[in-house]
């Protein structure tokens, strides 16, 4: 198959699954279609990711709308893996979901239809070679994922879904305004839609009017910040992540947020010749503010999924810092952090399936004493939260060190020092939450052991191996061709 056929198939397959699953006669049939479609989709996406990772930016394969470059490869692989895992744990969630937004009879089909539409748009995002097309795909993710956020149908789920759709749509409206301004500023670079291709923008950036280009960049990044969940425009994030079905929370946190961040990163790299340090300063500002806002919440006794949501705010902040620093070491840290956070955070949300099944009260308050009654669930919680906290030798510990050292390389020692203090405080907060969740007094299971604990424990085993493998290859990343390519182009 050619590159273009593979790129087309990676998007068409989940779209076809979304259409085919609606008339499925039984929930079991919908589950079966889900397993087959997700395996095929992920396989094709991973082949594309491998092609993209092997390419040098100058020789990256390009089609009418896509580019297969190293930056896209990293994020495409992430979206493929998280999507596959979320699809495979979804039946365990749906088995006990009951009636929500949709009737119990049709809920499996509508859940999968929205899920595959969301996944299809997410898979297209790292591939797209054009800022305007990326915006269209981002808006499409909002429509599909908002329905998934409110899938539970409770008052809280509706509130979370409503906040999500309104705030992210407004944010994307601001970004679109910036894109129109940029289209005007890039006049002469190319005609028509091509004017907003990443490569065309990068080649023409030096000739763009600085003031209008800066205004466009600020509007675009401020708008995307709403969707990434950077502080201070993160209000929807804790609510949507805590109320969405766990497999969807995993998609939102581990795949959507980093992928939107990729669009901000590509925009920053393309416009850097026109903006200089101003662009990086904006990203560093968002990064520090996100860390500062997130850390106090990591010290509070929050329900499991809400704790993970604030951890997402923290990690998106770290990634913003890494991209803002922009040195090869910081970029190596960003690549490692995206992968480590994706695996650990997705696992954390999957843990919520057996956890909330056995301890329904944990939806509204912190879980306690899980190790005593549910050792498999406790093991999975430990792998996830210890990694997210940055406990050595997790890849997130290594990536955070790389990003902080990268900041010093860039001459931003004070920023790195402040970030290091905030990260240390965040580590202590998460470590305390993990210990009290595993060993604390007060929590008693309200239901018998759940069958869903075993598959999640198996996933935890696979995740632990993958995380250790990431830590092992981390030392080879600085100076590698991949990081060199990402530092030069970001795609």
């Amino acid at each position, binding site marked *: 198959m050619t590159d273009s056929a593979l790129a087309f198939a990676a998007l068409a397959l989940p779209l076809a699954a979304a259409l085919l699953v609606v008339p499925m006669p039984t929930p079991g049939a919908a589950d079966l279609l889900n397993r087959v479609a997700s395996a095929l989709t992920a396989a094709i996406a991973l082949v594309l990711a491998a092609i993209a990772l092997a390419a040098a930016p100058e020789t990256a394969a390009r089609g009418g709308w896509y580019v297969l470059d190293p930056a896209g490869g990293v994020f495409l692989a992430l979206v493929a893996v998280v999507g596959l895992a979320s699809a495979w744990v979804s039946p365990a969630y749906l088995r006990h979901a009951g009636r929500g937004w949709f009737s119990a009879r049709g809920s499996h089909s509508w859940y999968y239809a929205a899920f595959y539409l969301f996944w299809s748009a997410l898979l297209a995002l790292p591939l797209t070679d054009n800022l*305007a097309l990326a915006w269209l795909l981002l808006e499409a993710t909002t429509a599909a994922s908002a329905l998934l956020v409110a899938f539970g149908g409770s008052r809280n789920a509706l*509130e979370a879904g409503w906040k999500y759709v309104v705030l992210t749509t407004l944010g994307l409206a601001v970004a679109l305004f910036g894109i129109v301004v940029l289209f005007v500023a890039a006049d002469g670079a190319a005609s028509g839609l091509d004017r907003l291709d990443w490569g065309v923008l990068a080649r023409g950036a030096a000739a763009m009017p600085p003031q209008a280009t800066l205004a466009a960049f600020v509007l675009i990044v401020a708008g995307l910040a709403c969707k990434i969940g950077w502080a201070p425009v993160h209000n929807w994030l804790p609510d949507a992540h805590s109320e969405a079905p766990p497999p969807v929370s995993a998609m939102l946190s581990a795949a959507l947020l980093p992928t939107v961040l990729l669009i901000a990163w590509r925009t920053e790299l393309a416009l850097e010749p026109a903006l200089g340090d101003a662009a990086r300063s904006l990203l560093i500002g968002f990064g520090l503010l996100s860390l500062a806002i997130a850390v106090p919440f990591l010290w509070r006794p929050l329900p499991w999924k809400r704790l993970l949501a604030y951890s997402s705010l923290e990690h998106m902040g770290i990634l913003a810092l890494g991209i803002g620093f922009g040195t090869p070491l910081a970029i190596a840290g960003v690549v490692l952090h995206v992968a480590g956070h994706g695996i650990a955070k997705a696992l954390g949300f999957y843990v919520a399936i057996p956890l909330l099944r056995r301890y329904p009260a944990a939806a509204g308050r912190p879980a306690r004493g899980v190790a005593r009654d549910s050792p498999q669930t406790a093991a999975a919680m430990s792998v996830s939260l210890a990694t997210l906290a940055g406990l050595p030798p997790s890849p997130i510990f290594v990536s955070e060190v790389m990003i902080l050292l990268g900041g010093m390389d860039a001459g931003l020692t004070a920023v790195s020092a402040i970030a290091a203090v905030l990260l240390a405080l965040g580590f202590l907060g998460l470590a305390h939450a993990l210990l009290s969740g595993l060993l604390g007094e007060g929590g008693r299971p309200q239901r018998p052991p759940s069958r869903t604990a075993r598959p999640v424990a198996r996933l935890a085993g696979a995740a632990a191996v993958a995380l250790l493998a990431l830590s092992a290859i981390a030392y080879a990343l600085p100076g590698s061709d991949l990081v060199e390519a990402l530092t030069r182009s970001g795609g």
Partner: protein
Amino acid sequence: MSAAAIAVLIALGFGVMAVRRRSLATLLVAAQALLLGVAALSSAGGHRAGFLAAGLILLVRAFALPLLLALTRRRTPEPGLVAPATTVVSRTLVATVVALLAVAATPALGLADPAAEHGAVALLGLGIAIVAMRRPALLQVLGILVAENGIYLLAISVPGGLPIVIELGVLFDLVLVVTVAAAFTQKIHGEVGTGDTDLLRGLRD
């Protein structure tokens, strides 16, 4: 687009901030879209594809979307008008300050028409202010549409226009999001008994 027409667009935006009836606010947004659509049609001139795209956008933004919202309003009857959190004077004052600040803070954007630039920025700011200050879900959707109308004003003022694929793509996404938002409005009304989003305050840390 003439400065007078842009002033009318902004006045209609202020109207959405001020009025209490959802039906009237929907009409004001439809009037905004109609005015913008006519301007887009006249600027498309002899360009056949551009003319057809502008016509389609006019039909959807000025008629189809307001009709969808009118149907949503009929399916979500309110026992009485939702009491606004602030008086009409304070809402108008805040809207004025937001619009002026947005215009003052935005540098020249490079269009040949500064009035269109200022009008577009003001409408974007107004739309955000409407979402922040109005409680009924349907009025918040209308706030999004006011902001989108600001972007459309900017888009039709771009020399040579935006590529048709972007204009139609944005239109498709707008229809998708407004449809989802309308579905949410009905669900919220079914759950809470009113479209007042102030009653959705269960999620706090």
